[in-house]
């Protein structure tokens, strides 16, 4: 059976959305990921789809174990995200979401760097609308910052790709040799994979996206970055250290947040850190662990964003200082939140326990990375205890009701998947792209993880006041970027404008001199040596320099008065001669 790139189903399917209405539109929206899923079933490893463009073969579909694994979870979660967002009325949001999913799938299945780059850029542009649709001043500004950062990342990726192609004549999406192209591509990919300090766009933009937009965004951008890292930079030790740093950095900042969605955004950085570390470790267990964590993280992180979205949707509030008592008003959402929180914290019996354990076991070879990841686990539990307690369980009177049914259905399915994978990890382990031996329920792992979480729980209960949310501004690297941007604007405004004015004055002076020369070229040629002589005299500070200057000024004035001596036609002839001379020199390559 003929297959098509799954990306095309989303990208083309989006065009029909504005033409449909009511239930038909809802059914159509859900049918798009289902169609893509059917397409995926028929795509076997080694299947490819190639088009010719500018004498180059662009591979829009290159299937193997890795791409099929990531592509499958992208399509499945795409279906659930669309289900969650069915109540959204703006067609533009649906269109952007479909293009966002489609372009992410395009990146996953791209068989060459140019196709990857093409979809990479579409992904950035389509996702920014999910921020702008929130429509506030803050969202519009955050959207601009988001797109600016992604244009920078895309430019690095483009430059790296072009340099790589010009030196190796290869555009394959595979490991590359160290060099300038290597660094540029790593920066470009690292920006999407939220490397520190390129991560600032994420906690800045995600909390300001629409409720459903943030759910979509929590899935695709960072995970495509991780996927490309797995393709191009597996086993790079520096990447593993970066992963460890991201895990701890993200969770430290998450603990300081008051806004639920900002807290979850920082947690994305932390969780992506586990994936990046696994890939950087480069062993089969490490990469499998990173990818398994990608799969699980998509599930529980989406569920967490959905729960946060439901909270905001029903209460209109997103700060923990304003929330509380929602467990009574929104019991199903609260239960689902607890399931997601236990999953992300790596509690035994939930999916996060399986994949986090894989990465931690693989990281024993790099003890610093291992320590960073273990400490991050402690912080993860602390921050979700904080959200759970201050958002749902503490006493507070707040007006709210349970989330809409359509949202709950999507959330229930994801929660079910979190538990089922946690209880039967072989469902996930059997579809991982590399073959490894791993037993998640080994006594060592179960006892170790349980001890870690129980002691952390005791600390939280005892020191509850320390973890209470505060309405503070937390400064991250974006504070430094803001200062640098201010400095850049000052540089453009003051010194550069001064320079431009100076250049302008010089140009006017040059034009006047030329005009003066053209009025009487013969006299001007006579005058010039005297002028150079005066320049020399002034340079050596000769005594009679002033007399010479006065005499020369008189000559210059006379020159102006006697302009009738040579006609304009002679001047034109002279200019033509100069141009001919230039042409002659240029043609015969003397210069």
């Amino acid at each position: 059976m003929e297959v098509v790139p799954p990306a095309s189903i989303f990208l083309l399917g989006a065009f029909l959305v504005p033409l449909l209405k009511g239930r038909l539109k809802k059914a159509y929206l859900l049918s798009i990921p289902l169609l893509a899923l059917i397409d995926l079933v028929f795509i076997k490893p080694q299947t490819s789809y190639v088009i010719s463009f500018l004498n180059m073969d662009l591979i829009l579909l290159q299937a193997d174990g890795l791409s099929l694994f990531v592509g499958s979870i992208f399509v499945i979660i795409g279906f659930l995200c669309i289900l969650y967002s069915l109540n959204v009325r703006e067609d533009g949001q649906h269109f952007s979401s479909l293009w966002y999913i489609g372009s992410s799938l395009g990146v996953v299945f791209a068989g060459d760097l140019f196709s990857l780059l093409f979809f990479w850029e579409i992904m950035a542009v389509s996702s920014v609308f999910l921020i702008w649709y929130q429509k506030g001043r803050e969202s519009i500004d955050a959207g601009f910052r988001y797109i600016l950062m992604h244009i920078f990342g895309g430019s690095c990726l483009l430059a790296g790709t072009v340099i790589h192609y010009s030196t190796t004549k290869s555009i394959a999406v595979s490991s590359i040799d160290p060099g300038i192209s290597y660094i540029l591509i790593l920066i470009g990919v690292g920006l999407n994979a939220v490397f520190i300090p390129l991560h600032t766009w994420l906690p800045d933009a995600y909390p300001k996206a629409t409720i459903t937009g943030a759910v979509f965004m929590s899935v695709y951008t960072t995970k495509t970055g991780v996927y490309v890292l797995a393709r191009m930079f597996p086993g790079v030790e520096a990447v593993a250290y970066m992963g460890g740093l991201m895990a701890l950095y993200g969770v430290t900042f998450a603990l300081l947040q008051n806004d639920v969605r900002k807290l979850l955004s920082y947690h994305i950085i932390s969780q992506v850190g586990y994936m990046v570390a696994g890939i950087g470790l480069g062993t089969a267990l490490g990469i499998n662990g990173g990818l398994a964590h990608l799969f699980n993280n998509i599930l529980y992180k989406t569920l967490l964003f959905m729960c946060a979205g439901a909270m905001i949707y029903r209460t209109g509030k997103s700060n923990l200082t304003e929330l509380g008592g929602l467990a009574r008003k929104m019991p199903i959402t609260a239960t689902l939140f607890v399931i997601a929180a236990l999953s992300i914290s790596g509690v035994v019996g939930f999916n996060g326990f399986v994949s986090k354990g894989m990465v931690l076991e693989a990281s024993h070879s790099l003890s610093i990375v291992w320590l960073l990841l273990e400490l991050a686990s402690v912080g993860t539990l602390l921050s979700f205890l904080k959200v759970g307690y201050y958002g749902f369980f503490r006493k507070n009177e707040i007006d709210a009701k349970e989330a809409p049914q359509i949202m709950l259905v999507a959330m229930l399915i994801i929660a079910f998947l979190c538990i089922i994978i946690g209880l039967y990890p072989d469902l996930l382990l059997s579809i991982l792209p590399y073959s490894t031996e791993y037993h998640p329920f080994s006594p060592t792992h179960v006892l170790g993880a349980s001890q870690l979480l129980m002691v952390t729980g005791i600390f939280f209960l005892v020191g509850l006041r320390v973890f209470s949310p505060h309405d503070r501004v937390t400064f991250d690297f974006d504070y430094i970027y803001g200062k640098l941007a201010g400095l850049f604007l000052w540089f453009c405004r003051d010194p550069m404008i001064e320079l431009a004015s100076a250049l302008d004055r010089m140009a006017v002076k040059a034009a006047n001199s030329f005009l003066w020369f053209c009025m009487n070229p013969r006299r001007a040629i006579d005058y010039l040596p005297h002028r150079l002589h005066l320049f020399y005299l002034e340079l050596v500070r000769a005594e009679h320099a002033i007399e010479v200057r006065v005499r020369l000024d008189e000559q210059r004035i006379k020159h102006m008065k006697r302009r009738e001596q040579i006609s304009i036609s002679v001047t034109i002839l002279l200019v033509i001669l100069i141009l001919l001379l230039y042409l002659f020199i240029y043609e015969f390559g003397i210069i």
Partner: protein
Amino acid sequence: MDACRSKMAIVLGFGSLLMLCLELIQVGEGYLFLGYNIVLAIIGCIYFITAIKIFGIIQGGVS
């Protein structure tokens, strides 16, 4: 600390002691360092509490 929180902390305390005992049995089989996860959790919590305090001082401005 209210009563509910105290009870929960005690339950978790007993739970972690139980885990430690089970780990002790595993040590007999020769493949574990006793209680290193408890030490890690304590170090982690101290780190995060310190981080919150320090950032609280540095970034004290109210939004």
